[in-house]
């Protein structure tokens, strides 16, 4: 503890570095591939980021360009193709809209529920909490069909509502927030009552601001899950491509048999993964704190 030999530090770094290499390998493959020309991908040449020898754009040829017109750098071609093949911006925008609305609705529903479970005494509270714990176990894949039929009966398939509504209640969010609220002193709630706030006002004016760190942790879980979700959008969005979320955009490249769009496909993957990584990097420190504070230990 006191006199740490730098040898042990070095060893720790070594082990962690090897781990980091394994962890980062797929990311490296993804980014590297998105920089390469098809032939470099096929032959696994080109080093880390491809030789960037000009290639001829196939889609440009298809539109009737000549070889000379259509020569571009592989990286440009891949990313241009990624955005040309599918309206990626639109999909990303959808992704943002969907994840943000899901998160906001989840907070809207979970926060009062968690407050009730943590701070209010009422008959059946334990049963209510048990119900939340049970719901925590239900994966959407298992109930997708009944849920789909439900939405279909309401005429809500192929709509933003279909992407958002099923997620409005997050058992995990309720659980997490409840754990956090347990650590908020009861006195604070009583003080708010003395100050003239009703229970509803307490939730939004006292508990919400106090819960920001835990909410941040939850936000990351929620946003990650729904930004990346491929299964549910695929089930409910059958008609309108304008409602696609980023993973569905990625799927456009993942036909049953082609392996030939690897460059653009990896470019798309890179584009989709990047926002989350950036968001995480920004929120990283408070995220770990938030988890710790939410008593998830």
């Amino acid at each position, binding site marked *: 503890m006191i006199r740490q030999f730098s040898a042990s530090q070095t060893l720790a770094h070594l082990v962690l570095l090897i781990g980091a290499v394994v962890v980062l390998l797929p990311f490296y493959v993804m980014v590297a591939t998105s920089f390469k020309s098809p032939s470099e991908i096929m032959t696994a040449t080109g080093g880390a980021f491809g030789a960037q020898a000009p290639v001829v754009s196939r889609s440009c040829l298809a539109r009737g360009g000549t070889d000379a017109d259509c020569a571009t750098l592989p990286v440009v071609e891949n990313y241009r193709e990624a955005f040309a093949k599918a309206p990626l911006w639109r999909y990303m925008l959808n992704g943002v809209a969907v994840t943000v609305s899901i998160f906001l609705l989840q907070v809207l529903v979970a926060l009062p529920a968690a407050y009730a479970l943590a701070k209010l005494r009422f008959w059946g509270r334990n049963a209510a909490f048990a119900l939340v714990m049970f719901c925590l176990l239900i994966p959407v894949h298992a109930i997708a069909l009944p849920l789909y039929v439900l939405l279909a009966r309401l005429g809500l398939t192929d709509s933003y509502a279909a992407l958002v509504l099923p997620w409005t209640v997050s058992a995990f969010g309720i659980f997490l927030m409840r754990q956090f609220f347990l650590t908020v*002193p009861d*006195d*604070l709630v*009583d*003080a*708010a*009552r*003395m*100050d*003239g*706030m009703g229970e509803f*006002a307490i939730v939004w004016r*006292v508990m919400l*601001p*106090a819960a*920001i760190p835990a909410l941040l942790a939850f936000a990351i879980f929620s946003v990650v899950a729904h930004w990346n979700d491929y299964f549910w959008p695929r089930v409910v969005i059958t008609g309108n491509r304008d409602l696609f979320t980023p993973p569905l955009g990625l799927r456009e490249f993942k036909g049953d048999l082609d392996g030939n769009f690897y460059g653009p496909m990896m470019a798309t993957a890179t584009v989709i993964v990047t926002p989350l990584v950036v968001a995480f990097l920004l929120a990283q420190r408070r995220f770990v704190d938030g988890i710790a504070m939410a008593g998830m230990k």
Partner: protein
Amino acid sequence: MATLALRGLSKSFGTTQILKQVDLSVADGEFLSLVGPSGCGKSTLLRIVAGLESADEGSVEIGGVPAGHLRAADRDLAMVFQSYALYPHLTVAGNIAVPLRMRRLTAAQRLPLLGPVLPGARSRGREIEARVRAVADMLDIAHLLDRRPGQLSGGQRQRVALGRAMVREPAAFLLDEPLSNLDAKMRLQTRTEIAALNRRLGTTFLYVTHDQIEAMTMSDRIAVMMDGEILQLGTPEELYDRPADIRVARFIGSPAINILPAETDASGHVLLCGHDTGMRAAAGGRIAHLGLRPEALAPAPHGPVAGRVRAVENLGSDIYVQIGVLGAESPVTVRCAPTVSPRPRIGETLFAAPVGRMIAFDAAGKAVPLVRAEVAAHV
């Protein structure tokens, strides 16, 4: 400004009765402390007065008006909590302003962005701001108004909590151990301030603590509570000098009172450790214990109290000598002046004699008034 009256309050949690038919009246402007050991129900009582909890039986009157049907926010009481319970996300100014904002602004005017531009909100907002500043000036925290609670010391938070309570000029203050999270120095300083505040504002204070020194130094009257009952209600002097119950005697005073075994001899004289004290019970009851405060004992060549010195604590201003006395439950403490000579030393035998008031208790622990034996004989 109002009186508080509790009549026959009872409260149980599950099967355990926490409050047992408690009666208590607090006069207008009075500073009344409620003291008692941990878990005796002080906070519960306070919370019932505040309206945060309801009694199973009994009633609460505020300013002579039954308050049972009023919710906490409508009782016009302010409460200060042990943990201060400040809103961590609001600045000091924001914290102090909350009670006013909740009361003086309409729901619409409180809205985040829209609110301030609504008619009337401006002027109300300015009023509130002025009031907050005035309170902050009074508590000497005006320079902290823009900080958040996390950036304040314990004492400063304490004052902010007081400020939040004061800002709306409530009928009475309820304080639940507001000093217990402060360190010794801070506690000393703040308790004077709170007492001064009571005098300055003239508002009724109901103050809960388990620290009897706090209660002694601040209160007009003290109610000692144990096991859900109020054992005695009186001025600090009364409690110190004339405790009605041995439990009260034990609770009040630091270092604690010395309880020594006593008897009543055939002639009705009270014997302390077998020595005649020259006193007898006024009403002639049997006496089981005598209570002697440390300052009511002094070393004397052949005093009735004798034992080996266990410890000598020199506080500079006083010396407390603890002696192990046969028959006493715990070591007997004797207060000496720092100039005492010879200075008692650990291990030697010390004799002490009563030099101050003796308090007698019967076997049930009830106080029994004593009178000089001769005087009584004359009567």
